[in-house]
């Protein structure tokens, strides 16, 4: 058993986090919102310096772990660039990256990016994508745009194999969301230690403490599910897609609790632009809603599990 990322991957994540901080940290997102056309140039060269775009998460376990750590660090700063999606680019298509979408309402935070990009649906069909219509202001869209899809593969025969692409996309996306949960918790911890009411820090109130702990249990749970799903991808387990969906369901559900509590503990200040939480919260929405939100993810997972359940201690055991 080894349930941790390698030391090298963790170090890579820390380096990426420091590099993004040096490049502007929270200001990266603020600048990108003011000038959406700059968003790629704000983030991509910083990570290119670290060799991020040479990482091959499909090729080696080490690079997959480095990619996961990188996504978590990108999430910490809510970096205004689809890092996980770029890391998921398929080797056999001339594209910058690949997004996971639903066939019915394809959308992704690709507004203003030159591309080209590809998309893969949850059932493994691949498409070239064209952003639909003029980009809406990122303040409300968080760079999400509807996509027109053009099929890439002539037949659907390879769709099952391409579930690995979907799996990787879901898992790395959740590592990004995990970084956002880390940040939301850190911001909230700092806030309740500092903010005084009734002559004492909010952190002294048990009602505040208990809310914080409920959020932390959710965040910690996502961290473990994310590790498990990553290993499942690494080990090419047949259950990897189920594990990715299980992670996604756990992560989306946790994000609802974590952000609800973090906003509550920040009070009105948490809604204001001057508070970092409000930025992380707004830009977490695409990750929580796309390709499917909580109900949609639960529905897909439930259908997948059918009667056999989720792989674990008692999968395949008969009840006699």
């Amino acid at each position, binding site marked *: *058993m*080894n*349930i*941790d*990322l*390698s030391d090298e991957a*963790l170090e890579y*994540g820390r380096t990426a986090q420091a590099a993004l901080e040096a490049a502007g940290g929270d200001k990266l997102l603020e600048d990108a919102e003011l000038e959406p056309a700059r968003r790629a140039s704000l983030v991509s060269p910083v990570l290119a310096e670290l060799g991020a775009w040479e990482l091959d998460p499909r090729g080696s*376990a080490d690079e997959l*772990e480095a990619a996961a*750590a990188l996504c*978590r660090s990108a999430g910490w700063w809510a970096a205004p660039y689809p890092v996980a999606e770029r890391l998921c680019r398929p080797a056999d298509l001339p594209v910058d990256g690949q997004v996971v979408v639903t066939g019915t309402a394809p959308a992704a935070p690709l507004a203003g990016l030159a591309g080209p990009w590809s998309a893969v649906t949850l059932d493994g069909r691949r498409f070239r994508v064209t952003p639909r219509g003029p980009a809406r202001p990122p303040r409300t869209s968080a760079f999400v745009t509807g996509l027109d899809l053009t099929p890439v593969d002539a037949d659907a025969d390879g769709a099952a194999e391409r579930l690995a692409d979907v799996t990787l996309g879901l898992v790395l996306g959740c590592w990004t969301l995990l970084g956002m949960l*880390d940040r939301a*918790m*850190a911001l909230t*911890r700092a806030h*309740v*230690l500092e903010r005084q009411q009734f002559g004492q820090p909010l*952190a002294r109130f*048990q009602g505040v*403490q*208990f809310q*914080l*702990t*409920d959020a*932390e*249990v959710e*965040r*910690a*749970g996502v*961290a*473990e*599910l994310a*590790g*498990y799903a*990553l*290993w499942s991808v*690494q*080990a090419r387990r047949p259950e990897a897609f189920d594990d990715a969906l*299980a992670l996604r*369901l*756990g992560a989306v559900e946790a994000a609802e609790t974590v952000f609800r509590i973090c906003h509550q503990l920040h009070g009105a200040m948490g809604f204001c632009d001057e508070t970092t939480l409000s930025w992380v919260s707004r830009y977490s929405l695409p990750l929580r809603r796309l390709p499917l939100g909580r*109900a949609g993810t*639960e*529905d897909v*997972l*439930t259908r997948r*599990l*059918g*009667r*056999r*359940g*989720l792989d*674990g*201690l*008692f999968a395949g*055991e*008969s*009840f*006699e």
Partner: protein
Amino acid sequence: MDFDMGADVARLRRTLRDLVEEHVPPDYLGAFTHDPADLDVAQRFCRVLADSGLLCLAWPPEFGGRGASLWEQTAVREEMWAHHEPRGAQYMGVNWVGPTIMRHGTEEQKARHLPPIAAGEVIWCQGFSEPDAGSDLASLRTAAVRDDAGWLVNGQKIWTSYATMAQWCFLLARTSKGERKQQGLTVFLVPMSDPAIEVRPIPTMIGPHHLNEVFFTDLRVTEADVLGTVDEGWALVQEVLAFERVGIARYARCERLLQAAPGAVGDAWAELPGELRGRWARMLVHARRARLLAYRVIATQGAGRVRPVDSAAYRIAVTRLDQESAEVLTDIVALAPPTGVAGARFQREVEEHARYSVSATVASGSIEMQRILLARALLANPVTAS
């Protein structure tokens, strides 16, 4: 990364399942029933485990164990709890009474107490909680007053599991008044057969024998009964709580029952409301999450570190899982009652799980205490990515 516990653990798991299948009747739902046959099952099963060298496999070889890895110990905890703890009350002696005696007992105490525990022949109870000292354990009032012959113990314990069937009690009593309430406490190892000890069962909705009151009236104890150092029992209690850091593997039973539900319900599974099947899938994710949080505690422990934030987060997640999974399973059997012998057994298992889960957020340290511990740890230090 590697979440596979390895071939040794897989073999151990298989062996334990085979032993359960061979020696535990399918209707067994735990030793704590009104039917004495259930207690017999547990006692016999402990001897089977002892004969196979599996009862104390975590113990060091010099005490009859085989120094099993943390992950082997994890598999034992999971398999036993998943199958309604066929060791009955013995897990307490094996998991922490024995190891604490190994570390702090005299040679006489080790010789007297360890062999019967290793052989599965003795049941221990824990004399900690009192009517006015629950979460605030150090406020306990049971007093051991010194005289020329040793101490006389007077007082009352409550919520004492297994007291009706235990032969020995790991008793925490006040021997002096220190500056802090944690000082002046002493652990005594006392025989429950002493007529100065009276046990009164407390009838409860979670089943018989779980909870008792224990009264001590002029119980005579001597230096020979003291475990460790007089007045320094609080440190031992902290050690005991550390042994219980992961505690019972509640997630394993939740996972087993959730996983078995579609098979038990049969064709009616497809007719269940989609919303309920969705909750079932969600609970499977939560069971995995609780299991992985337990593995985090164990891995950290294995690396020689203790992070209260991990164990408290796990305990909160797993006790909530216990109750929430019980709600989902209860809804499933209510809408699609399983039929046949196996179906009826599944219903009884779900009912037992549902009743017992009510106590999950109270037993072994309430969820509020876990939240306090977690909040304290969180506020003291920021959590970093491990």
